[in-house]
C-alpha cells in the first residue's frame, strides 16, 4: 500500500483547522488511511485503497477530510483558465506512448517543502498507479524555459540531450544503457525503434518519456512560480485522471491552472479535463446492502461529505476519481460517511449445520494415533527445494511442481513428499535428547501425467541408536490396525533406503506408501550419526 509523509502544520492549513492527534487519526479512517508516524515536522500515513490515487497526496487527503468534517462539502471547485498553449502529438507515437495531457500552473514561489510534496505525488502516481511508469508517467518543468508550442515526438535513438544528473549531452541509446533511470525504466520502451520525446519549438528536448527529464529545461528549483506539467501514457483515461489529480493538488496549494490543447492527428483535447461523471443512485440497493434506512436528505448530506455532487437521485463523481465502477462504490462511501463507528450491528440469525471436510476425520485420527506412539508432530512450510527433496535423499525427481519466479532456492518448489522435511528436522536437532520420533501430516503436490495433484501425506521418522525397520513397521501396523486396515509389506528397493531393509506398504492392491531404514549415504548428507527409519504414507489411499 502507498505511504506518504507531510508536515502536520501543512495538513492543518490545507484542512482549514487545527486538529488533535486522536481526531486526526479517527478522520483518517474515512480515507481508509492509517497513521504510521506522528511528529510535528513529519507525519507518515499509509493509504489502503490502491484504487484511489488522489489520496496519495496531502492535498487530496485534506480535501476529502474537509468534507468529512463538514468544513467544505460537495464537489471541489476546479477553477481553470482556458489557455492558448498547445502540444502537438506525433502520430508515430500511437504504438509507443500514444497519449499526453499537459497544463501550466502559476502560483506562489515553490519552496523546498512544496517541491518535495509535488515530487512525492509524482512518484506515487508513476510507481503505483502508473505501474512503474509503464501505464503513466509525469514530468514537471519550469515553464519559463520553454518555447511553446510543445511537440510530443517519436525520434530516433540518436537524438541527444543532457539528462538530469549528467553534465553532457547523451544520445537516447546511451541514456537507456547508462543512466540509472534508463536502466531502471528502459524496459517500458523495449521493442520500439522510435522514442517518445517532448520538445519545445526551438527543438530543445524537455524529456524522454517515461525515463528522464532534461537537465537544462526539466529541473524545477526553489523559487520557480510557473510550472509546465505533462503526463504521458498508454491509455487516455489514466493520463487524464493523473492530470486532474495533479492539477487539483496544485489548485489546493494556491496555484492557478491554465489548460492546454493537445493536438492529436485527427482530433484535439483540452487538458486538464476536470471531467466529472454521473451515476444514478440506487436507494433500494443502498438500503439493502447497508442495512440503513435512508432519506433523500441523508443521501445528499452523506454523499456531499465524501465530496460527491448529488441532486435528485443522480450522483456526480469528481474528476479525480475513476474508481467508481458500480453504484455500490458510491454506497460504500455513503456508509463510510455515515461512520462505521455509528453503525449498530445486527445479530446473524442463520441456522446452518457446520461441518469439516470429510478427510479431516481420518487425518486427525492418524495424528492422534502417532502421538499415542510417542511421536512429536512437526508442522513445516510447504515450499521446499529440489536439493532437499531429491539431492540429499539420493533419489530421482518424481514430478516436482516448480516455481518459475522463485526468490530463494530453498523455497523454489512445492514439496512432493514429507520424509526429507523430517530428515532435515533431525539434522537440525542433533543436540537434543534421543530417541527422536517425529511425524508430519500435510499436503504435498506433484505432477501426475498432465495434472497437478494435491495429496494428504503422513511421514514419520524414528531416530536412536537402535532404531530399525521392525520398530517403525510395528508402529505403522499399529496405526492401521486401529482403523481396521490390513496391510502387506512387499520387498522394495529405492536409493534412499538400505537394500533389503525397505518395503512397499500395500492395502489391498493400492500402494499406501513406503517404509525403510534410511541409507547411510542419506544419513551422511544430513550429517546424522544415528540410524533412522522412516515411512511416507499417502492417506488419500485410505480415505
Amino acid at each position, binding site marked *: 500500500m502507498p505511504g506518504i509523509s507531510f508536515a502536520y502544520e501543512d495538513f492543518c492549513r490545507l484542512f482549514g483547522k487545527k486538529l488533535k492527534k486522536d481526531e486526526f487519526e479517527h478522520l483518517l*479512517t*474515512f480515507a481508509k488511511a492509517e497513521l504510521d508516524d506522528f511528529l510535528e515536522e513529519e507525519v507518515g500515513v499509509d493509504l*489502503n*485503497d*490502491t*484504487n484511489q490515487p488522489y489520496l496519495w497526496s496531502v492535498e487530496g487527503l485534506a480535501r476529502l477530510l474537509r468534507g468529512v468534517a463538514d468544513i467544505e462539502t460537495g464537489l471541489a471547485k476546479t477553477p481553470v483558465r482556458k489557455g492558448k498553449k498547445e502540444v502537438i502529438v506525433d502520430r508515430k507515437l500511437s504504438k509507443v506512448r500514444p497519449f499526453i495531457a499537459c497544463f501550466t500552473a502559476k502560483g506562489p514561489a515553490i519552496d523546498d517543502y512544496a517541491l518535495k510534496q509535488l515530487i512525492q505525488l509524482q512518484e506515487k502516481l508513476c510507481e*503505483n498507479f502508473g*505501474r512503474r511508469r509503464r501505464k503513466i508517467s509525469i514530468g514537471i518543468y519550469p515553464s519559463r524555459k520553454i518555447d511553446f508550442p510543445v511537440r510530443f515526438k517519436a525520434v530516433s535513438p540518436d537524438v541527444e540531450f543532457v539528462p538530469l544528473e549528467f553534465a553532457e549531452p547523451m544520445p537516447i541509446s546511451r541514456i537507456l544503457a547508462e543512466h540509472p533511470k534508463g536502466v531502471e525504466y528502459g524496459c517500458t520502451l523495449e521493442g520500439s525503434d522510435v522514442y517518445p520525446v517532448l520538445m519545445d519549438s526551438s527543438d530543445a528536448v524537455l524529456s524522454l518519456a517515461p525515463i528522464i527529464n532534461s537537465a537544462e529545461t526539466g529541473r524545477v528549483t526553489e523559487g520557480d512560480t510557473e510550472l509546465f506539467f505533462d503526463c504521458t501514457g498508454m491509455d487516455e483515461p489514466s493520463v487524464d485522471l493523473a492530470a486532474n489529480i495533479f492539477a487539483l493538488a496544485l489548485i489546493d496549494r494556491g496555484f492557478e491552472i491554465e489548460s492546454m490543447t493537445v493536438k492529436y492527428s485527427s482530433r484535439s483535447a483540452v487538458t486538464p479535463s476536470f471531467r466529472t461523471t454521473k451515476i444514478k443512485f440506487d436507494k433500494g440497493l443502498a438500503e*439493502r*446492502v*447497508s*442495512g440503513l434506512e435512508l432519506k433523500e436528505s441523508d443521501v445528499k448530506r452523506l454523499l456531499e461529505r465524501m465530496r460527491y455532487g448529488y441532486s435528485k437521485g443522480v450522483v456526480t463523481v469528481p474528476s479525480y476519481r475513476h474508481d467508481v*465502477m*458500480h*453504484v*455500490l462504490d458510491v*454506497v*460504500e462511501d455513503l*456508509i*463510510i460517511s455515515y461512520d*462505521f*463507528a455509528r*453503525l449498530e*450491528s*445486527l*445479530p*446473524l440469525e*442463520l441456522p*446452518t*449445520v*457446520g*461441518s*469439516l471436510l470429510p478427510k*479431516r476425520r481420518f487425518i*486427525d485420527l492418524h495424528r492422534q494415533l502417532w*502421538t499415542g*506412539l510417542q511421536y*512429536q*508432530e*512437526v*508442522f*513445516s*512450510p*510447504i*515450499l521446499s527445494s529440489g536439493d532437499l527433496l531429491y539431492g540429499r535423499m539420493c533419489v530421482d525427481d518424481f514430478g516436482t*511442481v*516448480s*516455481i*518459475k*519466479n522463485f*526468490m*530463494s532456492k530453498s*523455497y523454489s518448489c512445492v514439496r512432493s513428499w514429507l520424509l526429507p522435511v523430517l530428515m532435515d*528436522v533431525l539434522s*537440525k536437532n542433533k543436540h537434543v535428547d534421543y530417541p*527422536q520420533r517425529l511425524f508430519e501430516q500435510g*499436503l504435498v*503436490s506433484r505432477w501426475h501425467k498432465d495434472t*497437478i495433484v*494435491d495429496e494428504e501425506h503422513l511421514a514419520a521418522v524414528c531416530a536412536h541408536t537402535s532404531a530399525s525397520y521392525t520398530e517403525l513397521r510395528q508402529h505403522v501396523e499399529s496405526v492401521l490396525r486401529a482403523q481396521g486396515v490390513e496391510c502387506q509389506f512387499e520387498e522394495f528397493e529405492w536409493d534412499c533406503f538400505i537394500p533389503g531393509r525397505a518395503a512397499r506398504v500395500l492395502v489391498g492392491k493400492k500402494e499406501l506408501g513406503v517404509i525403510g531404514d534410511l541409507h547411510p549415504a542419506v544419513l551422511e548428507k544430513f550429517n546424522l550419526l544415528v540410524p533412522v527409519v522412516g515411512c511416507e504414507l499417502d492417506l488419500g489411499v485410505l480415505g
Partner: protein
Amino acid sequence: MDIRKLAESLHPFERKVLPLVEERQTVRNIADACSLQEVEVMRALQWLENKGAVELSAEESELVDLDSNGKLYADKGLPERRFLDAISEDTLSVSQLEKKGLGKDEINACVGLLRRKGAVDLMKDGELSFTITDRGRELLEKPFLEESFLELDFPRDISSLSDEERFALESLKKRKGMVVVGKHKTKRAVLTDLGRDLISSAVREQDIVDVVSPALLRSGDWQGKSFRRFDVRINVPKVFGGKLQPYRVFLDWVRSRLVALGFEEMPGPLVESDFWDMDALFMPQFHSARDIHDAYYIEDATASDIPGKLLKKVKAAHESGGDTGSSGWKYHFDVGRTKQMLLRTQTTACSARKLASAPAVPGKYFAVARCFRYDVVDATHLPDFNQTEGFIIGEDLNFRHLVGLLKMFAREFADAEDVKVVPGYFPFTEPSAELFAKHPKLGWIELGGAGIFRPEVVKPLLGEYRPVLAWGLGIDRIAMLKLGIDDIRDLFSHDLQFLRDARLV
C-alpha cells in the same frame, strides 16, 4: 513427621548407609563397608541430609595416589633393589642386567641413584659393568624408605604422613610415573539426634516392602508389613511424550470453533489458476498484487478446468461490467493469462470456487488454508502462511450483519471486547471493512478484513447478485498472540526442544 513414617520412607541405600555413618564417617569409608558404590552412598547421604538425619561437610585435602609405575613397583619391587640384588653375587654388564629383566630406562635411572648413594662402582671394559659396594650391601639389608611408602594404602591424605613417609614421597615425586598428588574433597557425615533416633526406631528392613513384585503379590508376604514411603515432592527426570504441534492445534481449534458456529469447510487446491485466484475475484489483470513479484507462478503449467461460460462472464465483467451493472475495469482481458498457474495467494480462491458451485443458501462457509506470497523471510513475513476466510450467504443480509459477525469473531478468536471496524479496501468487496482489536500491550492490532462481495464477483459466479458477506482473519497473527510467539517463523519451528517444551493452547 513422626519417626516411624520417616523410618518407612528410607530408601534401601539410606537404610544401608545410616548405621555406618557414626563409625565410618566418610563416603569412601562407608562405601568400603557396604556393597554400594561411592555415588550411591553419596546419594543416600544427601537424601538423609534432606531428611535431617545427618549433617554433611566437605573437607578439602591433598591426596597422594600411586601412578602407573608406582603400582607396578609396589608389586614387583623397585628397580634399584632389583639392580642391587642382581649384582650382589657378581659384577654384571648392562646387557647382563637387561637379561635379568631390567629395562634400559630402569638401568639408567638406577645408575644415577645408586652412585649418589655410593652403592655401586662402575667399570668400563668395552661395555659398562657394575659392582656392588659395602654400602650397597648394607642398603640391601633393610627396606628402602620408598619401598615402605609404596606399601601403604592409597589414596592417602598427605597430612597423615610421617616425616619419613613425606621424605619418601618427595623423592618419588621426582621419579617418572610413581605418584600423583591432587586436591580432593572428602565428604564427611555426622549423625544428628534424629539420625540416632532413626537407627534406634527399630523399623527393620525385613518389615518394609520396597518393590511390589509379582512374587510378593503371589506370596501375600506384604501382609502385616509397611511399604516404603516415597518422597513424592522431589523432582523427577523429564520425559517428552508424543505431542501435537502447537500451531496446528491452534488451527484445529479455529476449525472446530467455526464448525460450532455453523460454518462448512471448503476445499481448494494449493496450485490455482489466475482465474480462480484473482480473475474471478474481479482483480484486474494489471493489479499490482498480480505482479510477477507478488505471486509464485508455476513452471510449464496451464489450467484446463476453467468453465468456458463462466470465463466469458468474468471476462465481460472485467472489460465492461457485463450484466453486473458495473462499468468494469475497461481494459482488454487476456484469456491466456487467466490460465496461468500459481501458488494460491489468498483463501478467497476457495470462496470463488464455492460460489461457482451452487452453494446451499442459506449457508456459511470457511477454509483454513495455506497461501503463498512473494516475500523475503523475516520475523514478520513468511512466503508460506495460513489464512482463514469464508463467506455467508442468505436472504436479506447486509453490512450491519457483517459488523456483528466481525465483533463476534474478535470475541471468539482473540478474546477481544474492545474492537473497532473501520473502512478498508479489497478489490473483490464493496463495501469493505477492517477489524481491529485492542491488545493490552500492543495497542490496536489488525485481526482481519471483510466486506460484501462485489456484484462483478457474485453475479458471474452465482448467477445473480445478492449481498454475500465475505470475511478473512489474520490467523497467523492471532496464533502468535495466543502462543506467545514473537517471530512468525516459530509457527513452523523445526527446533525439537522448542516443540517438546511448547505450551498447547
